[in-house]
């Protein structure tokens, strides 16, 4: 009698449309098809991990305030490219 169960990841990154300025900072985010300007950059930080694996992790996170008042976290995937939304906690 063999049964296989799976654990599903929580808080997985979701792709997001981002416009950046000449320094690579996000200035406009596209959320639910709506363009929202970034009003403030609160903080930025970088994580590099699992560099020994075929798919290393290299991300620059930004915590930003949007024009509608929300504060969200986004990151730029430096290894695979693209921008993602993910609550960092």
């Amino acid at each position, binding site marked *: 009698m*063999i049964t296989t169960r799976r*654990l599903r990841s*929580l808080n997985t990154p979701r792709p997001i449309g981002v416009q950046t300025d000449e320094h690579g900072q996000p200035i406009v985010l596209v959320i639910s098809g709506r363009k929202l300007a970034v009003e403030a950059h609160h903080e930025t930080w970088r994580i590099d991990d699992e560099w020994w694996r075929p798919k290393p992790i290299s991300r620059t996170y930004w915590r930003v305030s949007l024009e509608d008042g929300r504060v969200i976290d986004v990151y730029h995937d430096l290894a695979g490219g693209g921008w993602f939304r993910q609550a960092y906690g």
Partner: protein
Amino acid sequence: MVVACVNIPRFAVEAERQRRKRMNARLVLIGENTVYDCSLGAEVLKVRRGMKMSEAIGLCPTAIVLPTDVPYYERRSDEVVDFAEAFSPVVEASGTGAAYVALDGLPTPPRRLADDVIAGIHKQFGFMASVGIASGKFAARVAALITRPGVVKLVADGTEAAFLAPLPIEHLPAAEAMRWRLAMLGMGTIGEVARLPPGAIQAQFGAEGRRCWELAQGFDSEPVIARVSEQTIVRRLQLPSPAMTMDVILAGTEKVVQAAYSSLGGAGRGRWVRKAVVRAVLDGGGTWELPVAFREAVSDGDDAWFAIRNAITKRPPERPVEEIEVELIGLSGESGKQARMFEGKGKLWRQVEEAVRQIEVQQPGTEKAPVGKIVALEPWSRIPERRAALAEFGDKLAP
């Protein structure tokens, strides 16, 4: 006695090829310090099992070198032996990738049955077996070894000695020292051993020599011993990403142990377990295996987990873990149990379980309620998606 030996040549290599599709056309060496198995192309380049790996790589420098994964080969081999039991009630496993099948009293003629076994194994598992049929296990084994995959070699009753005579003495179950001495005496074939006086070979080589002489004569009455079938319970858990830390490995294993024990409480209520085997598929290939024998049979998942946890802590997996498997072995009937005086939060958990049952009733057609349980994996991780995961709501919830 009529015996068929089913042999899958280079079984470990074939098993590895099946799970690593990209290495189909490559030379393969399996082993650590010495060669455990090698592909046909490597054999052509004079690589032999037991040879030093450095020497083997020197002979075929373009080969892929894989670590030995014996638990995986044994599991695949057991699957093949299980399948062979559909053809005969008496099947004996003989190492990985080989088995003896007793054919006495079966309605199907031996050759046709052997053809069916070869076709069935190929269809079911993708392995190509060869089959040798003879009046004894040794001649059947040798016949299977010298026959091409997919072919049946039948050694007629009474012709075993003649069949074996021209074959090299390497086939005899003799120790290296005995083979070396036979070679020094100028004997290279089984027929030359058969021509020796039995008293002389026994005087030189003792019981081992006598046994080899009998086999060379075609005398082989060793019976096929059927496997003792044993019911086991296996539960597996695939992790969302390779787990590197001990806490994650322990958390995952605990979940699998509890899931395995919860099934004892269902269909197998009142069952006790004597042994558990924890296995892990490792990142980059390979299997880690840890057998845990309980001092006394255990029917409670928490008690079992205590023993298993201690064993894992003493001998943890050496690489990140992708999948965890727990197998419960030695299931027996209940022999009495000391009940707990205090159940702790039992009432609260019964309420939760009842709520889940209510949801399942309200959603007919679904076996499991769409209810999950958040499990902390690496709460300290810098990578947010590694911190927690959603597990299925199991049969048993440990507070």
